[in-house]
């Protein structure tokens, strides 16, 4: 890329054989319950449980507990379970356990947020000793992702026996994953040891020690002093300082997160496309990538990082598409020209903008944009809100105006972006279409995306939607963010590192070769 | 370290081996090493078994001199010159040796019995800790108990339970006794008593002084008594030093002072004391104010206030010159004026008792009947238990009684500062028992008819305002019917202050001046009754007279005085009638002269008997 002082994508040195007794991992926050469906973050729990499917680093679905799967009708999916999988306690995994685990997603008593991926789910039945058949209420081309995100399996017997306190340190659900917790605290971390019955390859790391260090600076100091070996919570706005930690390698894997400005296209003042475009032209995306993100981010074109499309298109086609996405280069003449066409030809506008207090990086982005917009005689005022309040106001879906947020894909498919940000059905409270961006044309594309059985068609429709939104300047992608990891130089990661393969990264940690 | 010599007969006061117990020579005390002086060139000598009094007005430097004798001068002050105790030089002595000297060699008793004892420890602890540090060994429990009882008995406390009490559970007199016991615990050769009775009632004062004298005689101890009361000094001591502005101006035996005074200041002091036995025509103290010590380093400090001063007096500081071998004075002109001094003193003594007519028919101004007051909600105790008296036109009424007898309570009820529990107060025909029940207009009228002057000169004026502001504010409350209003300056002239005082703030005024301003403020509304609650109790004698004279003039000008005091000499000077208060009841009433001359009630007799007379018989 043009700014390209720092290449995205993490390359680690080659691994050396040998065991690692303990890997100490720092976390920004505790994860609450030890239950994938209810934990507030999954950094620890992912090491203990397996889902039916998983992703590789590129974002392709790969077998996990299910050794294979197929779609037999628009509403029927059949999964073959892997043989000989055992829980931590040595008992074998059965279809009963999987059925129980899947049903938890829609059990109102569990009230799992993952239920959102199960909206089309009707029922699951065992259709063979190791075979499960899922029946959907309606065709849902994205169900297959649910089997990788939400379909983590726990032992039914234990769960039933501990119905009341499942997920608390006293009753941690039994799983099949590589590590099981030896001690655990919902707020402060815990220690995980290897699962002797793990079905997969035996990892090099013997045990994982998680500790919560909310303050990023303390986290950095902890790395520097060797008190922790690794953390995924690297504040990108401080990447420069972090890069200088002598004993640590900070790598930036490909991410999937985009920093985005949205404009409420359905009410004043941002229902004026020229104003939106003027602002888009005035934002120094490269400057932000370089300074705020210390060159770890990439200036964005549209809202979806091209890597997402690489799963479906070839490299060339992806590039072609990407280059066709309308872009608003940082150009004040163009900005002023657009502004002149708007209802605010001389600016004189005040934009009041809240942002999420915990997103310290937003503060810097906004400080920069504030400076940028000053030149259009637009006054950007921003104030931080505590996360709770920020979400409360945002999800009320009123007076949206201009918003800054980041959007991360939950699964590697354009749909995860376009649906939540661009569907008319999502232009309601508690949903994500903050731009109220929809039109006859976009809804037509959305329909294809939602229902068309042809994968390529669906993806292309998504690609079109991205271009539409960009042209409309409803959403302005600022930067594509990487997925960082800080790892002590003693260690390395075997294979590619990206957000999609994050789930099992500790199993791939090895001793670094020189 | 009991000194066997000290147990000899107290009669033999000649320096047996030439060393006096305490001697000071050219003592100077300054603020810091180079700062302004507070005590200058003081000479003093005290022999074994002798009682010496140091007399002077407030700020003269008495306490500092006393402190120098025990090497306890407050930090920040610098002592130079010579202070010898039994020959040992205290000025150059290190702190450790001084400490070993204290208690056993010299002990000290302080003025305020309410602050002299550690509030957090029992009486007994005070005694034991002193005894222990004296003997250097641990007393056993029973030994200690015996010793405590014995020591308490020595100071007239027979109840051994007192040892278990905390200081706050004891009366002032008791505390002073306990303190005395502590001071005596190491059997000192010299006891310094710094105004040991000033804070006590007259009756208690007499008892404590008696005790002090009996202990002194029994032990043959030297005593340096500090007091501002000449009569107290005369009745207890063998010799008296009079201090003025940081140095001694006269030194003599008590009789020599009255027979042949040799310093104008002493004469001034003696004549300023109001007599107990008769009413004096003209009351006046010494004009002017005590100067700051540093302003009179090179002259006779008293010159500015002295009637006999010549320009010579302002050249050089006069030394203490012998008059006889026991008498010395720092007046250069003593030879010239000795006769005049003597006659001046005689004149005041002989001044005619002013006849007071006894007229009980004049119009009633203020009538109090059945007045009762309790501060407790449950009425568990009464500060006033039924007071009846009448104040008539043209007469002034004195209210006397010991501390706590209810004088101030009565005054506050009259002023509406306290609500009486019961009874009736009538002022010029208006019922003012409850001020709260009065209307706005009535209140305004009442406030124009009764005014007051309080005891404490330092807080009776608002320190934030000028004198002029204070007086003008009072004048603004004057009723139209009270006649044409004077100006603030005129008011000041009336109380004998210059008009220029109007621009000053209270800080810049002395206690006597402040009291006069307070009187002027009260007079601003031309009240019918002026209530004075101990108006001169906090003032030095030399100033008292001036204030009393102003008040007397006020009472002659058509304002009735209601004069509260515990000082029988003062009440004699100021009032026509008197009521005697004991624990909230009137035990005796009548004309001032009849009550004081022929007291009927035992309580009144005790009060009258407790007034210091100035001769040794008073304490026996």
């Amino acid at each position, binding site marked *: 890329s043009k700014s390209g002082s720092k290449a995205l994508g993490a390359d680690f040195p080659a691994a050396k054989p040998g065991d690692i007794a303990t890997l100490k991992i720092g976390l920004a926050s505790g994860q609450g319950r030890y239950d994938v469906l209810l934990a507030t973050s999954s950094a620890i729990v992912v090491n203990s449980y397996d889902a039916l499917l998983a992703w590789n680093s590129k974002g392709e679905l790969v077998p996990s507990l299910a050794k294979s799967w197929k779609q037999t009708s628009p509403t029927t999916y059949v999964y073959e379970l892997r043989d000989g999988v055992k829980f931590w306690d040595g008992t074998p995994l059965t279809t009963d356990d999987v059925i129980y685990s899947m049903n938890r997603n829609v059990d109102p008593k569990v009230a799992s947020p993952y239920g959102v991926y199960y909206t089309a789910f009707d029922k699951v039945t065992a259709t063979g000793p190791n075979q499960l058949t899922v029946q959907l209420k309606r065709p849902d081309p994205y169900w297959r992702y649910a089997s990788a995100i939400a379909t983590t399996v726990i032992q039914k017997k234990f769960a039933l026996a501990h119905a009341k306190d499942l997920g608390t340190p006293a009753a941690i659900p039994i799983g099949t994953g590589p590590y099981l917790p030896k001690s655990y605290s919902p707020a402060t971390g815990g220690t995980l040891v290897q699962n002797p019955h793990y079905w997969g390859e035996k990892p090099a790391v013997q045990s994982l020690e998680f500790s919560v*260090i909310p303050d990023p600076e303390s986290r950095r100091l*902890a790395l520097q002093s060797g008190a922790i070996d690794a953390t995924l919570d690297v504040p990108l706005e401080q990447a420069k300082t972090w890069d200088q930690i002598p004993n640590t390698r900070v790598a930036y894997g490909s991410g999937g997160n985009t920093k985005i400005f949205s404009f409420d296209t359905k009410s004043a003042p941002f229902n004026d496309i020229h104003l939106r475009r003027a602002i888009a032209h005035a934002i120094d995306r490269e400057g932000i990538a370089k300074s705020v993100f210390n060159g770890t981010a990439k200036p964005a074109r549209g809202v979806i990082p091209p890597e997402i499309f690489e799963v479906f298109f070839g490299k060339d086609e992806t590039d072609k598409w990407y280059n066709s996405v309308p872009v608003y280069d940082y150009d004040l003449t163009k900005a002023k020209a657009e502004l002149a066409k708007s209802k605010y030809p001389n600016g004189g506008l005040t934009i009041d903008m809240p942002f999420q207090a915990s997103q310290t990086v937003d503060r810097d982005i906004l400080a920069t944009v504030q400076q940028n917009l000053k030149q259009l005689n637009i006054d950007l005022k921003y104030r931080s809100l505590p996360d709770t309040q920020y979400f409360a106001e945002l999800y009320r879906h009123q007076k949206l105006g201009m918003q800054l947020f980041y959007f991360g894909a939950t699964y590697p498919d354009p749909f995860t972006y376009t649906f939540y940000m661009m569907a008319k059905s999502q232009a309601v409270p508690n949903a994500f279409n903050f731009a109220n961006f929809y039109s006859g044309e976009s809804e037509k594309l959305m329909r294809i995306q939602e229902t068309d059985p042809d994968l390529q068609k669906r993806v292309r429709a998504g690609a079109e939607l991205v271009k539409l939104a960009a042209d409309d300047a409803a959403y302005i992608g600022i930067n594509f963010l990487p997925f960082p990891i800080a790892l002590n130089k003693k260690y390395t990661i075997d294979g590619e590192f990206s957000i999609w393969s994050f789930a099992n990264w500790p199993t791939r940690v090895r001793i670094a070769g020189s | 370290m009991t000194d066997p010599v000290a147990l000899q007969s107290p009669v033999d006061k000649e320096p047996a081996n030439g060393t006096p117990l305490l001697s000071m020579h050219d003592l100077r005390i300054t603020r810091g090493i180079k700062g302004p002086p507070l005590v200058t060139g003081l000479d003093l000598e005290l022999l074994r078994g002798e009682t010496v009094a140091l007399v002077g007005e407030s700020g003269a430097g008495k306490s500092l001199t006393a402190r120098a004798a025990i090497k306890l001068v407050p930090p920040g002050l610098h002592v130079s010159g010579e202070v010898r105790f039994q020959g040992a030089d205290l000025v150059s002595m290190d702190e450790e040796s001084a400490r070993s000297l204290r208690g056993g060699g010299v002990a000290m008793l302080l003025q305020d019995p309410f602050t002299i004892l550690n*509030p957090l420890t029992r009486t007994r602890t005070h005694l034991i800790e002193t005894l222990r540090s004296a003997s250097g060994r641990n007393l056993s429990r029973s030994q200690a108990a015996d010793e405590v009882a014995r020591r308490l008995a020595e100071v007239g406390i027979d109840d051994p339970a007192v040892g278990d009490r905390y200081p706050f559970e004891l009366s002032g007199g008791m505390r002073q006794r306990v303190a005395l016991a502590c001071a005596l615990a190491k059997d000192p050769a010299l006891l310094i008593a710094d105004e040991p009775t000033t804070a006590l009632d007259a009756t208690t004062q007499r008892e404590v002084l008696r005790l002090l004298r009996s202990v002194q005689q029994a032990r043959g101890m030297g005593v340096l008594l500090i007091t501002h009361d000449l009569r107290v000094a005369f009745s207890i001591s063998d010799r008296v030093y009079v201090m003025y502005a940081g140095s001694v101006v006269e030194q003599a035996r008590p009789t020599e002072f009255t027979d042949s005074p040799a310093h104008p200041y002493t004469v001034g002091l003696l004549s300023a004391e109001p007599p107990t036995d008769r009413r004096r025509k003209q009351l006046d103290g010494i004009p002017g104010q005590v100067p700051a010590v540093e302003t009179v380093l090179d002259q006779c400090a008293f010159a500015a206030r002295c009637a006999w001063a010549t320009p010579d007096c302002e050249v050089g500081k006069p030394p203490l010159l012998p008059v006889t071998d026991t008498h010395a004075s720092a007046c250069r002109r003593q030879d010239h004026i000795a006769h005049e001094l003597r006659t001046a003193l005689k004149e005041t003594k002989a001044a005619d008792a002013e006849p007071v007519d006894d007229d009980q028919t004049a119009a009633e101004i203020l009538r109090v009947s059945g007045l009762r007051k309790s501060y407790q909600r449950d009425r568990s105790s009464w500060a006033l238990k039924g007071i009846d008296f009448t104040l008539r036109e043209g007469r002034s009424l004195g209210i006397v009684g010991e501390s706590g007898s209810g004088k101030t309570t009565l005054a506050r009820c009259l002023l509406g500062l306290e609500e009486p529990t019961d009874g009736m107060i009538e002022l010029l025909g208006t019922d003012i028992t409850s001020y709260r029940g009065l209307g706005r207009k009535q209140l305004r009228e009442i406030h124009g008819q009764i005014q007051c002057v309080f005891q404490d000169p330092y807080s009776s004026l608002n320190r934030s305002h000028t004198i002029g502001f204070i007086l003008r504010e009072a004048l603004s409350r004057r009723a139209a019917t009270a006649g044409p209003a004077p100006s603030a300056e005129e008011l000041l002239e009336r109380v004998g202050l210059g008009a220029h005082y109007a621009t000053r703030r209270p800080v810049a005024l002395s206690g006597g001046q402040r009291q006069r301003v307070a009187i002027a403020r009260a007079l601003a509304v031309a009240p019918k009754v002026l209530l004075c609650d101990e108006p001169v109790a906090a003032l030095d004698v030399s100033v008292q007279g001036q204030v009393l004279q102003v008040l007397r003039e006020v009472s002659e000008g058509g304002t009735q005085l209601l004069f509260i005091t515990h000082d029988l000499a003062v009440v004699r000077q100021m009032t026509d009638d008197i009521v005697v208060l004991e624990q909230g009841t009137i035990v005796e009433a009548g004309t001032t002269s009849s009550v004081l001359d022929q007291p009927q009630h035992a309580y009144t007799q005790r009060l009258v008997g407790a007034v210091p007379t100035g001769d040794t018989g008073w304490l026996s």
Partner: protein
Amino acid sequence: MRLGWYVLRRLGVGALLLVIASFFVFSLLYISPGRPEQILLGGRPATPEIMAAIRAKYSLDDPFLVQYGRWFLEAIRLDFGQSIVTDQPVTTVLAERSLPTLALSVAGLVLTMIIAVPAGMYAAAKRNKVGDRLVSMLTLLGMSAPTFAVGVLLLYVFGVALAWFPVFGNGEGFGSQLQHLVLPAIALAVTQIAYVTRQTRAAALSVYGQDYVTFARSRGLGRSLIWRRYALLNSSLPIVTASGLLLAYTLAGAVLVEVTFSREGLGSLMLQAVQSKDIPVVQGLVAFAAVTVTLVNLGVDLINLAIDPRLRKEVIG
């Protein structure tokens, strides 16, 4: 007997404080924008059904007074409910977290007492001399230095630059915990030391000017006896009161210190719970703070009663 009543009355006031504080905080949480279910969702997409299920699970839809009433009735039985974020019983969370904070505040207080009282006494004794000036200057600096600034400074100097002490966390095992405690305790203590030194100096000065001290000296009592039984004992009322206030205020200081040093304690818990609208935990912490404040004040008053017979007379008769 009267003492019993006194204590009961004081506890009653404490209970009142607790009720008022908990009600206040409850209302505050109730009216404040933002809802716990959104925290649980953490910005993830959700369907209305899921939101409803979460609200039902935590009874968030009950009327305000019902919610408070339920909390209150359970709180009386020492059941403060479960954390919304972690599902752990609040009592367990508090118990776990209070130990590090207790260690911190005790360490801070011990440091304060062993430094501040002698320093204050020393300054009073050396009144207006060089020693006093020096103590006063340090006191001034200490009082002016915000706890967090001291913390950051200590962290960088002794944790990072010199690497003498660990830079974050509580540590495990006694030795390590002690090591982890050093810098935070100092950071917490700096202001406290300054404050107590000042109080001690003032108290000792005023005591030292009293007649009873002069009288004690005039009796030739030993220096140490005068310092102990006169100066120290009589100054101890304000010192004890000041220390009590410090203890009552520890939680406030602990927030700053624990955040700076990433310690897991009640202070950092407070910040997290408040930010995540974890109502039961915030309530539990408020109750804890109210109880601490009440008990500390009661303790201070009882100590003062033990010291001062005048107070004793006033209270017990």
